């Protein structure tokens, strides 16, 4: 188990200024869990990983490995394996000696450590490449060497810093599966830092989304996707992104509507608890796939003008708006390609009510439905 408690990290820029990189991180990672730290660049995710590795020291706060505080434990004594974004393979050593390097530091005899290397290399399909130098390998092979080096000392924790960002898209899929399979087989507590949300969603048991040195939300991919805790998470996760409509909440008969300068979106919800947000600034979030075309006479139908249609294979991405003014009023909808939607059509659509998220803009965009 890894526990991070009130972690704070500031960098001194000059005598007057400090830059806050991490502003109170709290995180608990269970044994055998695969956790992703996800966020835009500069959010503090790599800093967090570096502190876990012991390469950086926290300004304040505690790091626990198990029950032990490891704040001042040197990296070499933390029993971690780490893969760097650049892979950081030692250029003067062969692949074999690169992988054996951590074992050499443990003073393991040569024959024994080479035997171990053979075994690990086999598990990541490197057996034929052991005598090469790192520069003679392709990106994918280098990545596997880095993995093998991290795994061969059988660490308790595996830290991955953007391990796939230098691979091409197709290879990424394979490598990601390999990493996941290895992690499951070894039941290894693993933390991956990434800016690629698709990667994080695919590979991790739980994801911590960071922004500006603070964890915005920590949960399973599904939780984050369906119930974003705030506007940042809603905006950040999903591709194409969630539709966000900002405006005032008003009554509309039995129901509610969001009125902005550009559009009126009806919210077909009778929830009394929404009353306290009336006339307040809120934002409505809905995923493109949670909007669907409907009959003209459906009582929840709202009409939009189609401005753009993109084909995504079996589905289409429709960009539409319900007033002609301004750019900000558009919605994106993803629906099946059986609908004959063309640019310029005026089409009835409805919003999947249970999938709507509402964010209180007066409270930093906090999700109204999540306490």
């Amino acid at each position: 188990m890894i526990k991070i408690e009130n972690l704070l990290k500031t960098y001194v820029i000059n005598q007057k200024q400090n830059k806050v990189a991490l502003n109170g991180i709290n995180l608990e990672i269970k044994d055998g869990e695969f956790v992703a730290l996800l966020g835009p660049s500069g959010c503090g995710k790599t800093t967090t990983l570096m502190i876990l590795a012991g390469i950086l020291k926290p300004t304040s706060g505690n790091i626990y490995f198990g029950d032990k505080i490891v704040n001042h434990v040197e990296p070499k004594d933390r029993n971690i394996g780490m893969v760097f974004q650049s892979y950081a393979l030692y250029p003067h050593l062969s692949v074999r000696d690169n992988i054996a390097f951590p074992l050499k530091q443990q003073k393991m005899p040569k024959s024994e450590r080479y035997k171990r290397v053979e075994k690990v290399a086999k598990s990541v399909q490197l057996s034929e490449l052991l005598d090469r130098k790192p520069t003679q390998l392709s990106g994918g092979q280098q990545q596997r060497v880095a993995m093998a080096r991290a795994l061969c000392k059988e660490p308790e924790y595996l830290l991955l810093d953007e391990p796939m960002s230098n691979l091409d898209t197709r290879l990424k899929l394979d490598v990601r599966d390999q990493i996941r399979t290895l992690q499951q087989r070894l039941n290894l507590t693993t933390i991956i830092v990434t800016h690629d949300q698709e990667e994080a969603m695919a590979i991790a048991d739980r994801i911590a989304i960071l922004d500006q040195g603070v964890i915005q939300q920590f949960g399973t991919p599904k939780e984050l996707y369906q119930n974003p805790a705030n506007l940042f998470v809603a905006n950040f996760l999903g591709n194409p992104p969630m539709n966000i409509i900002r405006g005032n909440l008003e009554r509309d008969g039995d129901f509610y509507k969001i009125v902005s300068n550009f559009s009126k979106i009806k919210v077909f919800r009778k929830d009394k608890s929404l009353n306290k947000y009336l006339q307040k600034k809120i934002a409505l979030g809905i995923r493109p796939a949670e909007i669907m075309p409907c009959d003209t006479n459906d009582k929840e139908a709202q009409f939009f003008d189609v401005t753009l249609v993109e084909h995504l294979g079996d589905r289409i991405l429709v960009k539409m708006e319900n007033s002609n003014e301004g750019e900000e009023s558009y919605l994106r909808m993803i629906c099946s390609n059986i609908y004959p939607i063309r640019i310029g059509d005026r089409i009835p659509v409805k919003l999947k009510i249970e999938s709507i998220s509402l964010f209180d803009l007066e409270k930093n965009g906090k999700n109204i439905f999540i306490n």
Partner: protein
Amino acid sequence: MSNKIIIQNNRAVVRGFVVNILLILLTAPVIYFFYWLFTTSIVNSMTGNISFKNWGFLFKEMNLDSIIIPIIWPTLWFTIKFAVLVTLLDTMIAVPAAYAFSRLNFKGKTVLMKGLFFFNAFPSATIMIAIFFLLVNLNLVNTLVGVVLVAVATMLPNHVYILKGFFDDIPWDYEWAALVDGCTRFGTFKQVVLPSATSGIGVIMIFAFLRAYSEWFLFKILIFSTKYTTLAKMMQMMLMDDGDILDYGAMTALAIFFAVPVAVFYMLSQRQLMKISNLGGKKLA
């Protein structure tokens, strides 16, 4: 199609021809210079007879008009010992210093960095008077230790600066990876940083060796006798005070003798020296 290839081939031939002509024109003076040097050392300019009289220092003491050239081997041996000593001392100081400049943040780093640059700007001749008095105060004047220290000190700023560039090129990731892989700080330096900087260290060692090998000025200023004489000092001794050369033949023979080890050294270290062209620039992995 085939015509095209022939035309292209012709063009390549013409281009190669032009390049070769240019190279020959450019190297001809240099080659002539070496030719002149060699012939002067073995041909008597008065009579035109070939003799190896001027190379006599290889076997015995040579008595010129006003000075005696001793047999050469002890001097060569001393020169090499001196050069090796200076090289080792220079490297031993420059490597950790450059590493510190590259990696650590300490008070006064910027000022010291500018200092490295600034001290490079002075020819060592201009500070020699100050150095002389310093050595007198330290009782090191007229000692070999004094000469070695001064020789190392004058080349250090430059070498630290060059080597810092090489250390800067080593990504932090290597060191971090080594720390995670179980190295101590020193282990990281020894096992990962130093092997990655071998080319840089090689470069400054070559520089140091070549400069110490051709050192004469310090021996002239700081040593009052001929007990320590390098090859370069010996050649300098053949210059008379009015700038005339005592004996052209002996001088050229000595010059060739002086140059041969350097030439061999250059040939052996050529690949290393080519890396100097990368100094300061970022190398791509």
